C-alpha cells in the first residue's frame, strides 16, 4: 500500500514538473497567439496583458491589406514546393545510384558529398552570388531556388535507405525487361517512401526558414519570401506589435499544422533518428 502511494506521488510529481516545463517553454508561442488578437492599446498596457479583452480579428485582415502578406506567403509556398519536389527526385535518383550501382569514382563522390555538409554557407555565399549574377539570375526565382535543389543531407539519407532495399527487386525487374529509369520510379521510389517523408520534413523546414540566401539574392519587394518580408515588417512597423504577431502566426501556422499531424515524422526526421516511439 505504501509503495503504491509512493509511486502515485512520484507520478504526480513527474507530471507536475513536465507540465511546468511545458508551460515555460511554449509561453512565447502562446503570447504570440494571444497578442495577435489584441488591439494595439492592449499590447502596450502596464502591467502586461496575457489575454485580449475582446479578440480583434481585424488584425488578420490588416496584415493582408496593409502589408500584402499573401504575396510573400505565396512566394514562400512556391519556393518550398518546387525545392521539395526537386529534392525528392534528385536525392532519390542520386541516392539510388550511390547505393545500387558500381561505377568508378562512386565512393569518392559519396565522400565528397558528405564533406560538403561541413562547409558553412558563409564561406560559399559570395561566389554563389557571383555565379547567380553572371547567369543574370539576381532577383529571380531560379537564382533563389537553384542552389537548394539538392541537399547533401538528402542524398546521404536516401542512399542509406535505398541500400537496405534487397537487390532481388531490382534484378527481377531487370529480368522482366524493365528499363533502368522505370526501375527507379516504379520500384525504388515507392519502396523509399518512409525516407522520402523524412526528407520532405527536413527540406520543408529548411526552405521555409531560409534567410541569408534570399536576403542576398532577392532585391525587389514583390519577390521577397516570408522570412525576409517579416524582417522588413519588423523594421518598418516596429510598433504595430499586434500585426507583427499576426504575421508571425501566419508564418508559423503551416509548419505548426504539419507538425501536429506528423509530429513523429518531424521529430525523427529533424534529429535523424528513427524508431523513437514504438
Amino acid at each position, binding site marked *: 500500500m505504501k509503495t503504491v502511494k509512493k509511486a502515485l506521488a512520484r507520478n504526480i510529481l513527474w507530471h507536475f514538473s513536465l507540465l511546468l516545463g511545458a508551460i515555460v517553454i511554449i509561453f*512565447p508561442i502562446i503570447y504570440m497567439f494571444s497578442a495577435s488578437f489584441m488591439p494595439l492599446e492592449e499590447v502596450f498596457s502596464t502591467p502586461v496583458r496575457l489575454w485580449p479583452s475582446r479578440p480583434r480579428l481585424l488584425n488578420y485582415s490588416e496584415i493582408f491589406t496593409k502589408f500584402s502578406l499573401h504575396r510573400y506567403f505565396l512566394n514562400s509556398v512556391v519556393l518550398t514546393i518546387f525545392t521539395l519536389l526537386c529534392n525528392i527526385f534528385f536525392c532519390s535518383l542520386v541516392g539510388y545510384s550511390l547505393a545500387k550501382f558500381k561505377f568508378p569514382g562512386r565512393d569518392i563522390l559519396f565522400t565528397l558529398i558528405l564533406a560538403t555538409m561541413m562547409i558553412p554557407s558563409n564561406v560559399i555565399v559570395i561566389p554563389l552570388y557571383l555565379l547567380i549574377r553572371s547567369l543574370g539570375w539576381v532577383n529571380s526565382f531560379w537564382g533563389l531556388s537553384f542552389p537548394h535543389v539538392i541537399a547533401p543531407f538528402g542524398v546521404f539519407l536516401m542512399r542509406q535507405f535505398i541500400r537496405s532495399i534487397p537487390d532481388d527487386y531490382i534484378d527481377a525487374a531487370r529480368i522482366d525487361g524493365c528499363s533502368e529509369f522505370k526501375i527507379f520510379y516504379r520500384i525504388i521510389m515507392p519502396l523509399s517512401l518512409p525516407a522520402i517523408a523524412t526528407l520532405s520534413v527536413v527540406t520543408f523546414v529548411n526552405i521555409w526558414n531560409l534567410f541569408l540566401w534570399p536576403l542576398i539574392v532577392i532585391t525587389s519587394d514583390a519577390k521577397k519570401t516570408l522570412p525576409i518580408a517579416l524582417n522588413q515588417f519588423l523594421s518598418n512597423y516596429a510598433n504595430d506589435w499586434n500585426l507583427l504577431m499576426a504575421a508571425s502566426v501566419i*508564418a508559423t501556422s503551416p509548419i505548426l499544422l504539419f507538425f501536429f499531424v506528423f509530429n513523429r515524422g518531424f521529430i525523427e526526421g529533424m534529429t535523424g533518428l528513427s524508431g523513437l516511439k514504438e
Partner: protein
Amino acid sequence: MLRRIRRKSTKGVGIKKAERIYGFIFALPAIVFFAVFYFLPIIKTLQISFYRWDFLSPPAFEGLRNYVVLLKSSEFHNSLWKSFYYAFGTTIPIWFIALGLAVLFNRITSTSWLYLVVYYIPVVVPLIVACIVWQIMYHPSYGMLTLITRPLGFVDIPWLTSSRLAMPSIILLSIWKGTPFYMVIYLAGLVSIPREYTEAAQIDGANKYQVFRHITIPLLKPVILYVIVISIIAALQVFDPFYVMTKGGPGSATRVVTLFVNETAFQYLKVGTAAAASLVFFGLVLCLSLVILKFFRSSWE
C-alpha cells in the same frame, strides 16, 4: 556468392557495363550540382581572398594582404571573440539542460510523447518568428518579461540595447530554441540503454546518482560527444538573430563572424577581406571540432 552466380547466369557481362553507365548517368546531376554550387565556390572564395575587390571594378591582386589586414583588425578579433562567446554561452547550458530534461523524460510512452511534442515546438517555429516574438518580449517597458522582472524589483531592463545584456539575451533565445532538439537526441540515447544494466546496478545496492554517474553517463558518451560537436558547429554558424534583432549592436557587442563577413562583403563591399575572414573562421571551426573530438576520445578511452 549465390547472388553473383545468378546475376552472371541471367545477364552475363552486359549488365556490368550497363550498370556503370546508368550509375554514372543517375549520379550526374549530383556531380554537376555539387561541383558548381559547393566545390567551385570554395576554390573561388580562396581565389577572391587574395584580391582587393568591390564587386564592380576589376579585382586587384594583393597576395596575402587581406589576411594581414584581418590579423591586425580589432573588428575581426572582436567578432571572433563574440562568435565563440555566443557559441559556448549557448551550447554549454544546452548540454546540461537538455540532458536533465531527457533524464526527466526517461522513457518514451504515449503520455511522455505528448509532452515531447509540446517541448519540441520551439524547434519547429521559424527562427525569424522566434526572433520577432523574443524581441517584443524583451521590450524594456511593455515586454512579457517585465511580468517576471518587475516583481523582482528590476525596472526597464535594456535587454537588447545594452552592450552587456545584448549577447546574453540572444543566447537565452537560442537556448530556448535549441534545447529540445538536443534533448530528443539524448533521449534516444537513454532509451537505447538496456534496462538490465541499470537494474543490475540497483540490485547491487547502487543509489540513483551512482547509477546515473557510473552506468548511464559512460554508456551515453558517444551521444554526448555527438551533441557537443554538432551543437558548437551549429552555433558558430548562426546568423539570423544577430541580423534581425541587434544588427551587431549596440556598438559591436553582438557582431559575430557570420555578420562581420556579410557586412564586409555586401555593405562595405570589401569582398576579398570578407572571403579571407570566412576562410579563416572555417579553418578555426574545423580545428576546434578536431580538438574536441581528440580531447574527448583520449580522456574517455
